[in-house]
């Protein structure tokens, strides 16, 4: 595999960004879209080539050094890339789904005056995302980590005349920075423990540690704080629903398929460290499960098409962490992949609907769209089945694998997971039925304007639909007489983990019949939810009540997202503002008072001293004699 080709993978999007960013005034719209998209498609082609070259060469990680970035004392942080199974899988998702979303954006953003800026930002995002997964050490990962955060900020606030959107963007950046601080402290601890930040070096040294070593637990907890911010887990999740202020392709690419899965990538990348820290994994699993259930429950009552999908994303990320908590690293990666397909598809489908509905996002004003938007409907249907976990679509295999591992690990978490599945299936089918079934409930004008989206938008939908339908077959469990290609492929990543914690990697103790039972339960739950949703929203044709109508206490609580935003606002935002005002008006005043007191004191002492300067020789002689007497006494007595 040639190094220069590998460098081009992140470099091409960067070049695309520079061309569109610098030439934004002069390059015509058509060219902008082509340059931006071509940069990513070329990157995708190179990724495929790299993948093949890697397969041909074996399974060992390949390091591609570029230059020494920061060198201080004994610490050297090289700017270099690492190609292995994990980075390759991420490359394929990022550039693959990224290409489709770029193509889609050509149609979706066509009328926007910021077309050039949009493509520039999108390319910049891919550059940083690719750095994140390609870096061979934690600090390069951190470059990508913060870089994607910046692009997320710029794209959430893309329509920057709107103050609410700007606030959402700022909130996302700041909340992510809370996580980033955790990440940074993790890196510092890694530096003081291992003297290096290079993955290979750190992980090979880590195998000398005992399971449960406090330093390793500290590192993994710090890193996980970073993951909670980027991957929107409790308590750092509230930025993601607000991030829906950005254009819909952004939600699909950044806030569903790629950036938000960076936290999962980080944990899998550090699997040696996490396998050494079972107590951290316990926390990871619990937070994942709590998030999965909590976010799903909020999704039940949301009426904004993108908000439902946003909470769904938070919830699905929770499933991935639940899997990580049970050390089912490959299963979580599997879910990252299938989720990238079906969630990107759902968002792009939602975009197609919003496009057709003249920017309406409230599902209460939709209905019956399946006739006017047949392709969007069919693909959305496939994605809904896939996310609900109904076989043989992609989500079934990946979610089921996670749940099976969780079942072996902790039965209570499994129950939570199944409950979450039940809710997932319900809110997704509710969304599907309210949007595409029944009669149209929007304005006359909107109805008149309804149309299927152009080919640039529907082709990506179709491709993603195929992937959502068939993507699960890369990991068919042995119980279903399939081969788990993905798990086999990823297996070398855990060599060191197997060495330090062999018990965690023993083959499953579940019998086939137990596995069938587990599958049966989750499929049954999903189907029942879908049927209930069908009865409620198609047969009875009920529509969620308008906001003006009073709600029961519980409904109000869920509908208002458990008031978490309000609590954060009161506890953190308001108190820091108050503190700022107090320090500025009283703190500064007080310090100045002390300073002035010193000045006064000096003036006073100076005044006293001045009085000694009488000008009379007698006084001076007296003082001199007095001094000599004191000195004499001093000498004699001591």
């Amino acid at each position, binding site marked *: 595999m040639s190094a220069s080709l590998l460098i081009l993978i992140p470099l091409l999007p960067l070049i695309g960004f520079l061309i569109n960013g610098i030439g*934004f*005034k002069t390059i015509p719209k058509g060219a902008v879209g082509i340059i931006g998209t071509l940069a990513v498609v070329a990157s995708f082609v190179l990724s495929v080539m790299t993948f093949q070259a890697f397969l041909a060469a074996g399974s060992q990680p390949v390091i591609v050094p570029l*230059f*020494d*970035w*920061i*060198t*201080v*004392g004994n*610490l050297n942080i090289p700017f270099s890339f690492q190609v292995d199974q994990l980075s390759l899988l991420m490359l394929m998702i990022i550039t693959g789904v990224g290409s489709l979303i770029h193509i889609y954006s050509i149609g979706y953003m066509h009328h926007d005056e910021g077309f050039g800026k949009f493509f520039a930002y999108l390319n910049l995002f891919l550059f940083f995302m690719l750095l994140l997964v390609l870096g061979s050490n934690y*600090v390069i990962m*951190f*470059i990508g980590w*913060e*870089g994607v955060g*910046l692009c997320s*900020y710029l794209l959430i*606030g893309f329509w*920057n*005349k*709107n*103050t609410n959107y*700007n*606030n959402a963007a*700022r909130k996302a*950046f*700041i909340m992510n*920075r*809370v996580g*980033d*601080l955790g990440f*940074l*402290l993790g*890196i*510092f*601890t890694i*530096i*003081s423990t291992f003297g290096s930040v290079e993955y290979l070096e750190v992980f090979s040294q880590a195998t000398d540690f005992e399971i449960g070593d406090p330093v390793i637990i500290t590192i993994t907890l710090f890193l996980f704080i970073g993951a909670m911010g980027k991957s929107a887990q409790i308590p750092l999740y509230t930025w993601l629903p607000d991030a829906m202020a950005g254009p819909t392709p952004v939600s699909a690419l950044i806030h569903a398929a790629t950036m938000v899965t960076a936290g999962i990538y980080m944990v899998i990348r550090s699997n040696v460290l996490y396998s050494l820290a079972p107590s951290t994994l316990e926390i990871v699993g619990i937070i994942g499960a709590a998030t999965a259930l909590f976010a799903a429950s909020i999704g039940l009552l949301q009426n904004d098409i993108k908000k439902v999908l946003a909470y769904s994303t938070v919830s699905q990320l929770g499933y991935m962490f639940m899997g990580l908590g049970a050390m089912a690293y490959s299963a979580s990666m599997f879910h990252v992949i299938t989720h990238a397909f079906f969630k990107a598809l759902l968002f792009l489908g939602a975009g197609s609907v919003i496009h057709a509905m003249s920017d309406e996002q409230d599902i209460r004003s939709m209905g019956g769209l399946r006739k006017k938007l047949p392709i969007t409907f069919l693909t959305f249907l496939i994605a809904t089945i896939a996310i609900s976990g109904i076989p043989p679509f992609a989500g079934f295999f990946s979610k089921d694998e996670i749940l099976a591992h969780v079942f072996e690990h902790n039965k209570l978490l499994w129950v939570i997971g199944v409950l979450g599945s039940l809710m997932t299936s319900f809110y997704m089918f509710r969304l599907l039925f309210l949007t595409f079934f029944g009669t149209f409930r929007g304005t006359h004008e909107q109805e008149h304007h309804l149309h299927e989206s152009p080919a640039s938008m529907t082709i990506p939908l179709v491709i993603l639909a195929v992937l959502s339908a068939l993507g699960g077959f890369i990991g068919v469990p042995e119980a279903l007489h399939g081969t788990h290609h993905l798990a086999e492929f990823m297996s070398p990543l855990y060599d060191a983990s197997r060495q330090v914690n062999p018990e965690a990697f023993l083959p499953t103790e579940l019998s086939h019949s137990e596995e069938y039972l587990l599958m049966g339960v989750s499929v049954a739950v999903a189907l029942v939810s879908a049927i209930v949703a069908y009865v409620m929203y198609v047969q009875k044709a009920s529509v969620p009540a308008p906001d003006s109508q009073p709600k029961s206490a519980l409904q109000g609580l869920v509908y208002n997202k458990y008031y978490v935003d309000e609590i954060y606002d009161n506890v953190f935002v308001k108190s*820091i*503002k108050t*503190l*700022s*005002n107090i*320090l*500025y008006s009283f*703190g*500064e005043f007080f*310090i*100045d008072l*002390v*300073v002035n007191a010193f*000045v006064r004191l000096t003036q006073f002492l100076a005044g006293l001293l001045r009085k000694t300067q009488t000008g009379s020789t007698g006084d001076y002689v007296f003082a001199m004699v007095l001094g000599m007497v004191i000195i004499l006494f001093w000498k004699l007595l001591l």
Partner: protein
Amino acid sequence: MLTLLLILLPIAAGVLTLLSGERLAKQVALVSGLAVLGVAIAAWLQFDPAAGTQFSFKYAWLASGGISFAAGIDGISLVLVLLTTFLTPLIIISAFNHDYRKPASFYSLILFMEAALIGVFTATDAFLFYLFFEAALIPVYFLAAIWGGENRLKVTFKFFIYTIFGSLLMLVGLVYLYYQTPGTHTSEITAFYALQLSKQVQGFVFWAFFIAFAIKMPLFPFHTWQPDTYTESPTPATMLLSGIMLKMGVYGLIRFLLPIVPGGMEVWGTMAMVLSVIGIIYGSIIAIQQSDMKRLIAYSSFAHVGLMAAGVFSYSINGLQGALIQMLAHGINVIGLFFIIDIIYSRTKTRYLDQLGGITQSTPHLSVYFMILLLGSVALPLTNGFVGEFLLLSSVFQYDGWLGAIAGLTIILGSVYMLRLFQKSMFGPRSKWVEGFQDLTMSERAVLLPLVIMVFWIGIYPNTFLKLTEPAVSQLLQMVNN
């Protein structure tokens, strides 16, 4: 000899500017500023990091007393000389936006200031250092007192008294050390390094130096002169103060405090570290609610310098290297930000965030430059601010985990106030104050472009500068640890 040239050239240029008359002053000042930069670059190209202090000269001043006019350049001096000579021409161009009255005096003062700053950063004799340390105060005092805002006299007087007080303490310390040197005494800084002082004495000298430098930077709680002075001064003076002059304080810590009184550091270092960390958080929190953009950046600068000091007090190679690279980064970013605020002020006649909004709609170039400098300031990786903050925070964290975590809050708080600054001025609906706002002129771009290039240079390839200072820094640490 290059060092002598670096000190004398700006003085000569200042005199020339004064003589060239009001109409030509600008141009003469700019050309001479660039010439000084050229000399500095020549020194850089000939510089050998491993060879210690270079380009030295020494003339007897008070020969009998061992006091001499001696200066030279090692790695630590070089990066600060480069910073000074790089920023001075940009500060001169940035003033072109305004019609300052008496331009000949105005620009010549900037050049005199440059000479004094270079003197501070290169002096190898303690009394010469002191001379330049004091001399630097005079031009900037006049710049602020003559061309400043409404409250300038009251504010600059406070600033003057405050720093003079600190300097006097330092003088007492220096005189004491001078009398401790063996034989007929000498005031060479390296002779001070060799002194064997008792712990108790070291404690007193520590305080004399600490207060002097803490006021200059400033560190908490010696900072109350700073926000007012930064806000009331004309922008070029604010730039000199924040971009370069505060580095005199950090430089003093590295050159004097650490190596001369390591015993004092052992006793009082933790206190100094805690004060620095308090300053980081205190300044950041106050910056969050500021409405005057200039005052906001003043508090942010106060917070940043606290982190640099914390790095120095951590006693480690990460901390010192981080402080040095951060001095460069901070100088570049803060000057850029003050200039952008000046641009906005000169167009809208307001610096209040509540009155601004929506500027980005007509100013793509300004927006991009502003954003890049802001990212440098909030330490986004691949910008200059990250390298320094990463090294500094890691050094504080290794000093003490809790202090490191608290100091680390700066990356959150920094993004809070900087993004608020950007959003309230650039984004949102267009305010009536920004009607007809024009994008950058050529001369404005001439200032911002070099700054932004440096933001990325230091961010992407910091080793250019880290390698320059590393030998000098490790030598210093070795000496301290013995």
